[in-house]
């Protein structure tokens, strides 16, 4: 047999498909360029405005594409990247995440001693990586997106490197990230070795219909891909980095990590599992379920032991990842592959089964809902962090308690009633109280699980939700019913400022928090639109 000659054809480029990424990357480069060429330091707001505008632009472009393209999947560049409903919806989310993070960070950069242009550039670059991950249809593209996102994040955290905690968390994140990247890469290698391709839909098509249950290479490859992505989404037992990194990272970055980075990881996970190796769902679904169990349990149980709010939120983020895993694992009925072949207009095409659609869409819904809750929560933390710091500074001595110690939240409801209320809404939403997005998200996930007969998983998920509710309630209690009697003013220095205050809050952060709360509540009350979106998004996944 002769050589396999692959004829060269210049791949067609659909520039429109790439527009969101180009906007993000272009703005990042442009900003850097201007910042370095400018004779004087740019005012802080320029970077913020650029970030916001870019994030918004990317989101808007994606939204317009969503509407204009009628959700028809558009692969481009030889199928390496695809713009379908799934990627567009996540692109909108990423854009929104950028906007929120930029808003929150605006007032915090100073405190963390971070340079605005660099911060903005890295934020936008990482967002580009996330967008790539959402639409990657090739394992290598996926990997590169993941690396872009990760490396940008390492540096974003290290930007606050004057703090020992930031250095430590950046280092931990980096070493473990590199370590797990190696696993991921090895997974790619094994999948490649078993199928001869790195293209997701290529692999999917190749595997379709073939019974490869005993294809150990493939199965090991899937397992290693799960390791890499499991690390990214902080699934137990690959979660260890998360609490430390979340705690050490600047709060705005933490919010971004918990929402956008996680969403990107899950998007990649969903794509890999449902596009490439859907045929093996009977093999990986149990693994996913196992990971979900562990993630839910560890996240919830560890969250209630925390005395640091930021760290508690980190663990809670882990338990939320568990919920998303519940959703993703809910492929209908055991023994049933995740996709079907159907005849549309005489042509055969692959589609996801209803169960699989429900599973992915519930995960997408959960991700979107949770992202806003997380962004909002960490925005609150960011605001409070600066307050605590200025309080400490004015108190003259360093307060021994860490800036987010639970005790420091005592009596917040009195000092900052509105902020406390917003935080309460966000926390309760995470606990899954109805009329918030968190509830609908849990509901969707549970529905998906039950659709797939995952009763035990659904029940366990809800039970862990109750356990983690305890963690949220501790914070709410601290704010509304401080440990000391209501009139005792001897605890935290900030508590001394007894009178409720409006002023002093950075407007940008207030806006971001309001946005998060608004989304949380509106989606909680009227979830139909978002539900439809997440379903449409999944229905149009290219297979």
């Amino acid at each position, binding site marked *: 047999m002769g050589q396999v000659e692959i004829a060269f054809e210049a791949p067609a480029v659909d520039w429109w498909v790439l527009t969101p990424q180009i906007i993000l990357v272009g703005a990042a480069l442009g900003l850097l360029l201007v910042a370095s060429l400018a004779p004087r330091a740019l005012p802080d707001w320029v970077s913020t405005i650029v970030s916001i505008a870019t994030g918004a632009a990317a989101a808007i472009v994606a939204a317009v594409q969503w509407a204009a393209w009628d959700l028809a999947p558009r692969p481009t560049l030889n199928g390496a990247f695809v713009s379908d409903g799934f990627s567009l919806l996540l692109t909108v989310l990423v854009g929104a995440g950028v906007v929120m993070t930029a808003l929150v960070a605006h007032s915090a950069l100073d405190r963390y001693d971070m340079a605005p242009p660099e911060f903005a550039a890295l934020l936008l670059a990482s967002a580009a990586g996330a967008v790539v991950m959402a639409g990657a249809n090739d394992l290598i593209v996926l990997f590169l997106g993941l690396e872009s996102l990760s490396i940008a994040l*390492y540096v974003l955290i290290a930007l606050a490197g004057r703090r020992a905690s930031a250095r430590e968390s950046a280092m931990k994140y980096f070493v473990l990230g590199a370590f797990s990247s190696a696993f991921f890469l090895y997974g790619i290698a094994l999948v490649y070795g078993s199928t001869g391709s790195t293209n997701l839909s290529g692999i999917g098509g190749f595997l379709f219909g073939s019974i490869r249950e005993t294809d150990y290479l493939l199965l090991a490859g899937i397992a290693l891909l799960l390791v890499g992505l499991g690390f990214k989404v902080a699934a137990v037992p690959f979660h260890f980095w998360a609490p430390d990194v979340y705690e050490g990272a600047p709060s705005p970055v933490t919010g971004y990590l918990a929402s956008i980075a996680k969403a990107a990881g899950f998007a990649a996970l969903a794509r890999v599992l449902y596009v490439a190796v859907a045929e093996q769902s009977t093999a990986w679904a149990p693994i996913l379920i196992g990971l979900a169990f562990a993630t839910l349990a560890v996240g919830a149980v560890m969250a209630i032991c925390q005395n640091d709010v930021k760290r508690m939120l980190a663990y809670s983020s882990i338990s939320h990842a568990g919920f998303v895993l519940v959703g993703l694992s809910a492929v209908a009925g055991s023994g049933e592959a995740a996709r079907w072949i159907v005849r549309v207009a005489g042509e055969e095409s692959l589609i996801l089964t209803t169960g699989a659609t429900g599973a992915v869409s519930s995960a997408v819904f959960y991700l979107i809902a949770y992202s806003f809750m997380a962004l909002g929560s960490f925005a609150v933390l960011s605001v409070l962090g600066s307050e605590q710091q200025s309080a400490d500074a004015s108190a003259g001595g360093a307060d021994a308690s860490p800036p987010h110690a639970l005790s420091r939240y005592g009596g917040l409801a009195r000092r900052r009633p509105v902020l406390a209320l917003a935080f309460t809404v966000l926390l309760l939403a995470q606990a899954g109280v109805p009329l918030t997005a968190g509830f609908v998200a849990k509901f969707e996930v549970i529905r998906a699980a039950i659709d797939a007969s995952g009763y035990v998983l659904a029940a366990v998920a809800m039970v862990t939700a109750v356990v983690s509710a305890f963690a949220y309630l501790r914070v709410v209690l601290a704010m509304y019913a401080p440990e000391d009697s209501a009139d005792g003013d001897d605890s935290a220095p900030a508590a001394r400022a007894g009178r409720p205050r409006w002023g002093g809050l950075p407007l940008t952060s207030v806006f971001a928090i309001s946005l998060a709360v608004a989304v949380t509540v509106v989606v909680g009350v009227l979830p139909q639109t978002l539900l439809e979106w997440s379903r449409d998004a999944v229905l149009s996944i290219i297979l």
Partner: protein
Amino acid sequence: MSGLEVTTGWYLTLGAMLFLIGGTGLLVRRNPLIMLMCVELMLNGVNLSFIAFADRFGDVHGHTVVLFVLVVAAAEVVVGLGLVVAVLRASPRATADDLSALKG
């Protein structure tokens, strides 16, 4: 086909061993620089596997992928070394184990 023949499996085994040695090294060493080198070992193991597979399939894509891995490795190393520098500047004798203030 008689006697010893170097099959794909050999290369794969070697790659996997490199991967495992690298991983084990990362687990046992405290020096951040050596940890980074261990990651490199792992990546090289992967690279070997890719090339072996490519050889087996007669598919040049595997080679291309290795190029990307190299790029990623370079990028990681660069940033990683930057971080190491940042950390070691602050506390010159620090090992990975000293970065354990955040826990619990």
